[in-house]
């Protein structure tokens, strides 16, 4: 009976750890955001990187808040997010080694073609938000501490609105990712702030379209950071740094620029831009 039990325990451990052994060779875990994942950028970039280096990049897509938490816990080797202030704090607190700017895309204000708030074509996004609030037009917020959510909150502030206090039933926080927010907006014919990348690959548009774009305040900067091996010694420093180095290299930057949906470029590489 004891020998049988021992054999069973070994077999059980084999089952559980089977996928694990192969994961030890040449792979890294990158915590990124759902909007980056949903845009399809990784599907385009990672095969190129793997062909060049043989490294498997395993992307775990979470909200920005959760991605940063994953990095703090040491459950990822690298972060690829778009929340500059939080990224800098991450490094300052000692959880990250160094922040590298990689690329930017922009947010767009999406809404129904019927446009009850009359914001189509506006160049000032703050004015557009004021109009939405004064009309009480339905607005979907991600409400999940993500980079997009924080950008949205900053825009309400820029419009002079304390959205936490001044929201009404027209303002709906769903606590989910970009795709879910767009789905909800499509079903409810509501306004929503989205990143252009997710919008371009989103298929369930219903009656929605881009109404406001191009305002400088809508630009969305992405950065990458290696999780600090001093805090988490198991972090794959060399492999992670290889990925970072490739992303900011001319080759990686070109690969980012080459990613297009319907002929439109989604992300604009700016690793060398000062102050990015």
């Amino acid at each position, binding site marked *: 009976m004891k020998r049988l039990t021992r054999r069973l325990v070994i077999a059980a451990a084999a089952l559980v750890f*089977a996928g694990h052994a192969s994961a030890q060779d040449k792979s890294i875990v990158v915590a990124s955001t759902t909007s980056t994942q949903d845009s399809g950028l990784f599907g385009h970039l990672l095969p190129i990187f793997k062909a060049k280096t043989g490294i498997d990049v*395993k*992307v775990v897509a979470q909200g920005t808040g959760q991605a940063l938490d994953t990095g703090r816990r040491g459950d990822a080797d690298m972060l690829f997010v778009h929340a500059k202030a939080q990224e800098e704090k991450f490094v300052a607190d000692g959880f990250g080694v160094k922040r590298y700017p990689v690329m930017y895309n922009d947010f767009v204000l999406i809404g129904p073609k019927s446009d009850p708030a009359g914001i189509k074509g506006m160049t000032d996004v703050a004015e557009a938000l004021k109009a939405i609030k004064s009309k009480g037009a339905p607005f979907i917020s991600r409400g999940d501490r993500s980079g997009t959510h924080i950008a949205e909150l900053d825009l309400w502030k820029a419009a002079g609105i304390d959205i936490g206090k001044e929201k009404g039933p027209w303002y709906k926080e769903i606590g989910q990712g970009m795709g879910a927010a767009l*789905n909800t907006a499509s079903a409810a014919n509501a306004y929503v702030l989205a990143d252009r990348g997710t919008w371009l690959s989103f298929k369930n548009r219903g009656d929605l379209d881009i109404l406001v774009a191009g305002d400088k305040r809508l630009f969305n900067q992405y950065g990458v950071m290696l999780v600090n091996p001093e805090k988490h010694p198991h972090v794959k420093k060399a492999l992670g740094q290889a990925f970072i180095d490739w992303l900011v290299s001319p080759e990686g930057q070109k690969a980012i620029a080459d990613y297009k949906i319907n002929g439109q470029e989604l992300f604009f590489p700016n690793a060398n831009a000062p102050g990015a």
Partner: protein
Amino acid sequence: MPDDVTALQLVLSGDPALFAIVRLSLYVSLSAVVLAALIGIPLGAWIALTRFPGRQGVIVLLNALMGLPPVVVGLAVYLMLSRSGPLGGFGLLFTAGAMIIAQTVLVTPIIAALTRQTIEDLWIEYRDELTAMNLGPIGRVMTLIWDARFSLVTALLAGFGRAAAEVGAIIIVGGNIEGFTRTMTTAIALETSKGDLPLAVGLGLVLIAIVIAVNALAWTARRAGERLAG
């Protein structure tokens, strides 16, 4: 995965990415059922046959655990397996192994509780005879488990159904990583959130087909068994 091709075309053409997802789903859920059976069947049989203080409370708890919310299990396993958690040293988070662990936690109470019920019912029937034949505790347990095997298959099926259908636990501990921890249910969640509904529906149909097939297989096995043993 190609955008415009429908899921049915993917299935019929044997698209390797789709089948990799299906294979991983089956691997995770079947492994979990096997592990849950190895733990749950002996545990259920032991509770059925042993008198100990607090036994009724344990039975009530076991039945209640059948309804563990998957997402809560996912969170708990996530905290255990995180590098900052007690079992972080194994580096299991975001691997298929973590998903197997989470689903095993979900399925074991189901198998244990159903085993306990089945074995206890059968024991009431067999007790006099097995005692009169002077069988020791191991002999009794083996006899009961063997004679109850078809009902136990039903319990395993119920466990598999639970594992194959859930998404809350494995999406948290697996991370839904393409090519590594993306299963049918997590892929459906992803494709739905991307608005790619036809693909999500297609994957859903494949999943339902698998669940029906497994049930049909087990039903035939049970019928054959009943014909043999009455």
